[in-house]
């Protein structure tokens, strides 16, 4: 009897799979239950964002940026309008700046709630998902009274925002923040400190510092690996330098630095920081002001190009815009943070069990709309 020839088996996960957070196919080579190779296959959600931009005016691109990262649409259009404003040298009114920050941070909370909820779902915890969606719903309600839409807002405009805050927004905001702060503790008790959850996520899918940096991973995934890097703090854009907040990093409380639990934890802590920012912004926002004051008659930036990056809930979101002086951009390139996070998957998931793949994937919090564009 010779040795039993152990063949590797190729397994397909997706493209239609509830835990792939979109339409993603993973080609997994398994040796028994251990993963020896994993290749993400992307492009199922490609909607020609960059080609569309070549044929649309600058304002008309904004709804398309919303549709790239549909979970955090406010942050996506925020980055785009800031880039165009810098290109055109527009100074927006104070009130607009504050409204934008409030909206962006609200959307960050909503996005993180979805990320944490679905991460729990991937691990097998169904109840926290429902609780988190209940709170996310209330943020979406706030967006709905402001701009009519719940997911794709087209709210940030070049030089302003589409509508001023509606009546009752402030009171509703304070009420929501008070209640939400309490709910975060509830989440920690029901999910974060749950033994089963910790067993599934701590010490799994460790992303060391140097791997994260080598792959260009940014945002909560990078901070989960212990690197203190947040564009809101390190390269403040808009008015982020006026707010006091901390940058939470993963410290390996439950396992080692850079594991799935750390990435989860950083997101949970970031929600606290976002609450702090929103509170300060609500207190300091100028009560009067016309949000349409600085809207340019025609959005027609001078010849030139710009690269501008902002901190979206998924990380370092950059826009590279080339203008040839016409009302249509010559080129809009988007640097997607979720794309770089996914590219690191094959590195960090190799060697883990098959059942860990979806946990690792869920902890990276990718949005396929942004990866494929």
């Amino acid at each position, binding site marked *: 009897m010779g040795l039993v020839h152990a063949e590797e088996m190729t397994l397909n996960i997706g493209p239609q799979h509830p835990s792939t957070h979109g339409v993603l196919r993973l080609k997994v080579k398994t040796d028994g239950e251990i993963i020896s190779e994993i290749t993400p296959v992307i492009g199922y959600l490609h909607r020609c964002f960059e080609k569309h931009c070549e044929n649309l005016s600058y304002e008309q691109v904004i709804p398309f940026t919303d549709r790239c990262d549909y979970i955090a649409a406010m942050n996506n259009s925020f980055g785009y309008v800031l880039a165009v404003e810098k290109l055109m040298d527009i100074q927006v009114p104070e009130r607009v700046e504050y409204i934008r920050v409030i909206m962006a941070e609200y959307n960050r909370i909503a996005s993180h709630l979805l990320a944490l909820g679905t991460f729990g779902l991937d691990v097998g915890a169904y109840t926290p998902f429902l609780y988190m969606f209940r709170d996310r719903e209330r943020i979406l309600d706030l967006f709905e009274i402001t701009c009519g839409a719940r997911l*794709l807002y087209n709210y940030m405009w070049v030089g302003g925002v*589409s509508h001023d805050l509606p009546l009752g927004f402030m009171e509703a905001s304070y009420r929501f923040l008070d209640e939400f702060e309490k709910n975060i503790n509830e989440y920690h008790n029901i999910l974060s400190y749950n033994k089963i959850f910790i067993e599934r996520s701590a010490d799994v899918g460790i992303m060391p510092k140097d791997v994260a940096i080598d792959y260009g991973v940014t945002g909560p995934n990078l901070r989960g690996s212990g690197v203190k890097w947040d564009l809101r703090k390190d390269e403040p854009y808009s008015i982020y330098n006026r707010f006091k907040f901390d940058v939470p990093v993963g410290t390996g409380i439950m396992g080692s630095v850079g594991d799935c639990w750390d990435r989860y934890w950083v997101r949970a802590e970031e929600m606290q920081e976002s609450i702090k920012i929103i509170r300060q912004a609500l207190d300091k926002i100028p009560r009067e002001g016309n949000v349409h004051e600085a809207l340019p008659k025609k959005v027609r930036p001078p010849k030139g190009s710009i690269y501008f990056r902002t901190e979206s809930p998924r990380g370092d979101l950059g826009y590279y815009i080339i203008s040839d002086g016409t009302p249509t951009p010559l080129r809009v390139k988007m640097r997607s943070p979720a794309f770089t996070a996914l590219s690191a998957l094959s590195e960090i998931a190799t060697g883990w069990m098959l059942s860990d793949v979806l946990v690792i994937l869920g902890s990276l919090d990718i949005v396929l709309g942004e990866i494929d564009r």
Partner: protein
Amino acid sequence: MKNYFQNIWQSITTLLIGLGITIKHMFKARKGNVTLQYPEEKWPRPERNIGFDPKNYNIIRSKLHVDIDDCIGCRKCERACPVGCIKIDALKVPKETDLGLTSSGTTKRLLISRFDIDMTECMFCNLCTYPCPEDCIFMTGGPNSEKQPLDYEYSQYDRSRLIFKFANVTKNDIRRITTAPPVQQEIL
């Protein structure tokens, strides 16, 4: 042999008994206990209280509506639309033709022979409603409830019926107005 035919007989009788039961149920069916004929009949809209009155919303995203009597055919909405789902044909008319005024008092100079909005293509970005000088294209409901009640479902049997046609002039009207002989001048 006897067994064989008995089997067939049994299956036929039991089947008929079963069918009889279902037919009896068909006639017994109470009204309201059967499938809802959806686009014709609808369940009432569920109550949804988020603590705000829809009238206090800044805007709402539902179905686009055009007050065609107010439209001057400037095509600003058509140009603003990123996906190009608004199609307008505006015809030049002889100078003296009186097309009336809009509700804000602007003289209408163009005859709108076609104003189609393809709601299957629309992505509800609301960009078309901002540039309109007469405020005559808007989303129904919400703050516009007074002008047009909320219509968010607009389900149809066929996709082609989701292309909403707002122009209200007939072919005859178009022929009459655009080729109107300048007789009026002589009378004046």
